[in-house]
């Protein structure tokens, strides 16, 4: 079963002065086993959208299909625990939800909550911590005494330890140092390629979209305005320009050089290729 939104509306605080329509008639199908980026200006509904995937939010109208579940406002949405075991959601600033005495215990909380045995939970948690780049010297430390970026890794490990099929990450690299952000994105690619995880990433980093994602969903004012393959989005047609978002760095340089008379293919796939193409132009090969 795919992941799909069918005519989904979501209204925050209905019938109050704070009423706010965050999602407007969303029709969207997310491909399984792919990495999908969700981008758009602040307040466009990205977080609201992804919080529907594990039934943290239930549509005001319409239906969300996820794996073998169907979620809508007019039916009782029972047994959400089994859904949440298969769809792991990592919030913005997940580090504020750490609470256990030690890092290892904190990561183990999820697996234990899903009735895994103590030993199994410990093993899974240690593996998850290794995946996010935290070695055993961290196990017995307090999650409150480490840096913001390290806390983020602990929080992500907490979800990985549950081993969900679908991993939903709301701005997972915001606030990480550049090497940390890079290794985090590489981890998601590995989880996708090696373990066939379906991954959704809410992000503002267009370089990450270009370099690591398969598909991209663009949101604006509660609506989905584009849903394409990443390569089509950046290199075919005008959609990337129409949405008025800053291009990834590589494409910005290519654009700037083209404006100055360089004949460069915008599809150049990495920095080495770009350097070679520039050299060719300069030496008129």
């Amino acid at each position, binding site marked *: 079963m795919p992941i799909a939104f069918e005519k989904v509306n979501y209204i925050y605080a209905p019938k109050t002065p704070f009423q706010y329509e965050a999602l407007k008639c969303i029709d969207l199908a997310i491909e399984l086993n792919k990495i999908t980026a969700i981008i758009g200006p*602040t307040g466009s509904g990205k977080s609201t959208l992804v919080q529907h995937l594990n039934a943290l939010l239930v549509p005001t109208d319409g239906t969300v299909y996820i794996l073998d579940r169907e979620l809508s406002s007019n039916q009782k949405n029972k047994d959400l625990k089994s859904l949440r075991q298969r769809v792991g959601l990592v919030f913005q600033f997940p580090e504020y939800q750490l609470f256990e005495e030690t890092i290892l215990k904190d990561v183990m909380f999820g697996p234990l909550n899903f009735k895994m045995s103590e030993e199994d939970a410990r093993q899974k948690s240690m593996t998850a911590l290794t995946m996010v780049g935290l070695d055993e010297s961290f196990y017995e430390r307090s999650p409150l005494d480490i840096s913001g*970026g390290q806390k983020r890794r602990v929080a992500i490990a907490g979800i990985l330890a549950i081993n969900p099929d679908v991993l939903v990450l709301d*701005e997972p690299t915001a606030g990480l140092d550049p090497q940390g952000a890079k290794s985090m994105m590489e981890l998601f690619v590995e989880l996708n390629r090696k373990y066939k995880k379906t991954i959704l990433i809410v992000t503002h980093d267009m370089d990450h979209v270009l370099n690591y994602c398969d598909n991209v969903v663009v949101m604006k004012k509660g609506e989905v305005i584009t849903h394409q393959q990443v390569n089509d989005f950046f290199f075919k047609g005008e959609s990337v320009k129409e949405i008025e978002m800053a291009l990834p760095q590589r494409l910005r340089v290519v654009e700037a050089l083209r404006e100055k008379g360089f004949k460069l293919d915008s599809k150049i796939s990495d920095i080495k290729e770009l350097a070679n193409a520039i050299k060719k132009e300069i030496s008129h090969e």
Partner: protein
Amino acid sequence: MNPIEVKDLNFSYDQHLDVVKDVSFTVERGSYTTLIGHNGSGKSTIAKLIIGLLEKEQGSILIDGEELNNETVESIRRKIGIVFQNPDNQFIGATVRDDIAFGLENHQVDPKDMDAIIEKYAGEVGMIEYMNHEPTRLSGGQKQRVAIAGILAMKPEILILDEATSMLDPEGKEDINSLVKQLHKENNMTILSITHDVEEVMKSDHVIVMYEGRIVKDGVPSKMMLNEQELVRLKLDAPYSVKLSNELSKLGIKLKNAGNMEGMVDELCQLLLKK
């Protein structure tokens, strides 16, 4: 007299782990200084020490020449505005309007002027439509906009930004950065920005680089950010222009303007025309 002078600062959360080790630096008046470093290198800890949220173990912190201690902390905090990484930590008001008003009231702004100031800054950060919304119900990026408006409205002499725009979309980030720059110029505001954004670093006057609690580099970004391998070792990243210039250098094309994209594009263009 410098707005921020830190000398031989040391701090640890517990005895085993020194978070800040022998840190000394100066932020010049009216400068835009960036503070960068890997996660856990001590950046946010330094910000918290400067505003007296954490108490130093050794060393001294001078703000406008005045030593930070229990007697001076209140008056020093009036000079410094800080925007934290997570804006949820600093909302007080029930609505966006109240929240911005709160800081102004604290600074004894004349109530007659208050509405105009609130609207000006809410407008500048693009949140005018949300004046009557609850801050806690806004999106992450919108919260950051409100937090920034609340601090800027008070026109602090010194502004500390702790990854204050990490959750904004690229356009939003640029809007906020140019607003900060404008206020920085108009009011000769001193800015210390903790960031992971290499492009912001390249546009700043001065950069301080931290690694494992110590300052390892301190100077002009166009000189400090050129060694790609060293930056990677420090768990950071070189600007894209530097990386491209390194690749070109391997192919025998040596450029002078590695630290600045526009300069590099111009230089390449001249090379193209020459032959």
